[in-house]
């Protein structure tokens, strides 16, 4: 295996990640007191007005720790070595949660009938987030290994173990935890990584078709999921309002009232209880109200730059397993960003998925921060050229594994 000399990490990924975290803090600071007020007056709870901001601050702090651990401390080889164990533990935790939920244990924290969290006293933990990260690591090693063994696409050697692991993960997340959003993210991770695994395009497309059929079947056979789809169609067709369309309508109301420049920080009305999940899943809509089209354009721009940059790092990464991992992180992030925002704008049904790095919610931010941290660590070992250029003339592969110096200096001067 070829190893490139270590160089500076990708600063664009670093700063866009930190920038998004900072933006999340700002918006939670602005609407956290409103959220506390709504909960206090509606449910008679007693949240301090700073409760959510402090919670987000804590999440950001923990995420930064995870981010820099992955970035600077934990060696990639270690992650590679324990990927399989990590996957087993993750599936075991999700399985344990399912069992606890079925037995009605208080250790399983349920909201609106879905049990997605371990209740650990003052903190709660969502194993599905861990599962996404573990799946990325696991698939990276698995796909790399199968490619090395030359059994990519082999029914018994490849598809069977893959189907078992992915099927178990999806079952635990989508069926046991009722978390369609994370399910979408998992599928995105799987197919994103499969796409660059070297699998033949024919097999890949057959698999995509197969999963689509299963997905449509799963949605159509569940009244709960169909309700969301119907609500989404009702919103698209501007038909009558109902309880099910309430969430999408209010998200779009928030975004729509924002206009070009937004109503400004602290002036969000939709955050005062009209929009459900205003601080977590719906934070994008509140940002739309607060910062307007220009603000959202910038947010989407940052996500676009981050995603394109992660993709670029993947493309420039020499080692197959590393490249797979980075694409996994990319697919994960892309799925969350796109599905969340499209739900808020009425383009897809609401699935209940967080907006990476911006939404309130500790587990999700910590794990995605860790994943991006790993990408950042790997970005120190990229080739100077993207791989396709390498392929044309493999003899020049080892030459000059640096960024062009002019580019670095220009960045420093800014």
């Amino acid at each position, binding site marked *: 295996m070829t190893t490139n000399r270590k160089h500076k990490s990708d600063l664009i990924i670093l700063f866009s990640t930190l920038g998004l975290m900072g933006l999340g803090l700002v918006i939670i600071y602005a609407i956290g007191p409103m959220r506390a*007020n709504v909960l206090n007056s509606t449910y*008679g709870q007693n949240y301090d007005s700073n409760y959510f901001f402090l919670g987000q601050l804590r999440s950001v702090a923990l995420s930064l720790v995870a981010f820099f651990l992955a970035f600077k401390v934990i060696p990639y080889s270690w992650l590679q070595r324990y990927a399989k164990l990590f996957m087993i533990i993750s599936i075991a935790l999700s399985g344990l949660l399912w069992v606890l939920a079925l037995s009605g244990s208080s250790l399983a924290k349920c909201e609106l009938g879905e049990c997605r969290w371990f209740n650990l006293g003052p903190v709660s933990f969502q194993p599905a987030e861990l599962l996404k990260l573990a799946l990325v690591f696991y698939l990276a090693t698995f796909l790399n290994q199968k490619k090395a063994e030359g059994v990519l696409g082999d029914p018994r050697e490849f598809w069977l173990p893959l189907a078992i692991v992915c099927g178990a993960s999806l079952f635990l997340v989508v069926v046991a935890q009722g978390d369609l959003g994370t399910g979408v993210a998992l599928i995105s991770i799987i197919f994103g990584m499969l796409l660059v695994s070297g699998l033949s395009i024919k097999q890949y497309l057959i698999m995509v078709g197969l999963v689509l059929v299963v997905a449509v079947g799963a949605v159509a056979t569940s009244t709960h999921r169909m309700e969301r789809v119907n609500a989404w169609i009702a919103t698209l067709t501007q038909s009558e309002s109902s309880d099910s369309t309430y969430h999408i309508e209010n998200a779009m*109301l928030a*975004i*729509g009232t924002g206009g070009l420049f937004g109503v400004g920080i602290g002036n969000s009305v939709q955050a*005062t209880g009209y929009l459900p999940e205003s601080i977590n899943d719906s934070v994008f809509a509140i940002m739309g109200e607060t910062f307007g089209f220009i603000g959202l354009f910038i947010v989407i721009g940052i996500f*676009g730059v981050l995603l394109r940059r992660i993709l670029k790092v993947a493309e420039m990464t020499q080692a197959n397993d590393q490249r797979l991992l980075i694409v996994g992180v990319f697919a994960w992030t*892309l799925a969350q960003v796109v599905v969340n925002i499209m739900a808020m704008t009425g383009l897809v049904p609401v699935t209940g998925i967080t907006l990476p790095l911006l939404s309130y919610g500790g587990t999700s931010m910590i794990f995605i921060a860790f994943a991006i941290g790993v990408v950042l660590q790997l970005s120190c070992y990229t080739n100077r050229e993207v791989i396709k250029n390498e392929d044309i003339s493999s003899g020049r592969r080892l030459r000059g594994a640096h960024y062009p110096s002019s580019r670095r200096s220009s960045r420093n001067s800014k």
Partner: protein
Amino acid sequence: MPRSNSHQHISSMSDLGARFKILRYLVLLLLAIIVVRLFFIQIVEHDAWVARADKEHTLLETITAKRGEIYMMDHGQPVPIVLNQTTYQVIIDPSVTEKDAIKAALEKYSSEYITVDLNELYSQEGLRYAIVAKNVPHQIASQIAAEGIPAVWFSKNNQRVYPEGELASGLLGFVNDDGLGQYGVEGSLNQTLAGKDGLLKTTADVNKVALSIGKDNVKIPAEDGKNVVLSVDRGLERGVEEIAMKHIENTPATNAAALVMNANTGEVVAMASLPNYDPSNYGHVKDASAYTNQVTEVPYEPASVCKSFAFSAAINEGVMSADTTYFNQGYEIVDDWKINNAEQRSSLYGIINMKTALYWSLNTGSIYALKLLGGNPSAINQQGREKLYDYYYNKFRLGQASGIELIEAEGFIPDPNEGWGRDSVYANMTFGQNLGITMIQTATAYSAVVNGGYWRTPTIVKGYYQDGEIAQINSTTSASDTTGEAPTTEGHQADIAGEAAVGFVANDRIEDKILSDETSAMMRDMFVYNREYKARAGIDRPGYDIGGKSGTAQVIKNGAYDDTMSETVGTYIGYIAPKGGMPQYVIMVKMWAEGAYLDGLIASNLFDDVENYVIDYYRIKPGV
């Protein structure tokens, strides 16, 4: 990476490059779709969303003005008679509020206020709002609140409370469930008491709590209603009511009305319309007539009490005196209608003077006064009718709203010339039949008769109570100031404007000298003479000039006066003066019952007790 076939490797790698390209374009495509969508929502549809948000976020709320309280006087100090109390409705969200917790709290503190069956309430699916208790006093509401049960709200209500119970309920009226004053002072001064509600237009959160966010927030503060101080004296009112109720018990009467007013200012110090009802349970009366203020709202025929006015008119015109004589034959035939005297003792036949005629309340005497007004002692004529009309309607203002700050009936005085049988109608009017006038009109006119001839607008509102002081609102203009022009609607009288819809329009108070001093003095002599027998009996105390006049009114049954006298209304009116002094208080009482005979004599007994009570209550000093 193990080196396999180099050609294959290259092709897989360039294939990989293409796949990365797909991912790159996928990012671009998805984000572009989102941006286009956002542009559509935020720029193209922006106005529509703003309009919709305004509709959903704007809270339009009335800021309720605090209703003014009602005071009476008590020895010169205002005392509260009708107060406001804030009570609370307890509201819960059954999907959040724990059933056992709220049930325990409600049963512990406020079981008598629970309005629903909690078990039934909690059996309903999806219920998010329910009122579980009403009229809960503040203290109990705060005890429930202190339990800290989630999703329990308290909504404020203002309620009238009556520390004096039923006292003067017929005068005060009540406030209905819509917060609207009904009957009595609550009704007539509703606008003054209600104040003016303010308006709050604001952006609100999902729980309808006003937010400081938003550009178009409007807040018009409420103008609280004024605290009205009545001139009625609480202690006197209570005493008068107790006395009258005792007389209701001891006579066939079922109802009584009583009025005590200052003879010189027109200020009402007691006004009772009995029996009272409980204004805090106003819905529990058997008959809505219980709400009626008999003193101001019911025109009736006070009968012989009106001889005071016919006599005053003739005396004031200089055509008659107390000593004027006429031939009493016990009856008079007018328009082929025989009008009898109630008193037919033989000693009265022949030539008697007017003082005697008034003493025995002879109808022939008052008819003779009408003849004298016409300048023809042997017959009633047009001039007599017109003069009597002028005195009754224009001078004594009978058949016109008196101007008191209450809901009033106008009543009627028949036209002197229009209609059939004017002479007999006017003959009847001299002894108080064939007309419709209220007690307040009668008492106000009677005050003018005895107080030296001054007709003054009666009043029951002393002023507005604020900051421990009574702000005066009434002013008096002499009649000459307003002659020929309509009363103005400017100035302070606008403050007290009641509801024109119920016939109440407050004018500046009028003072009008309608009778000469001599007329008034002569009338007083006769009124005191009327009661000489009461003085002899020790009922009227020495040292006081108590004058009075009784009235026994036939009522119209089936379109005609019932000559069997099976049902009559007894009225008595009189005044209190220290011996040799001017009258201080005029007292009028009325007693009646369905199908019962109640005459002026029975009413006079009630007057006697009230008169003596007033003397004691005000410690009116005897004269010498």
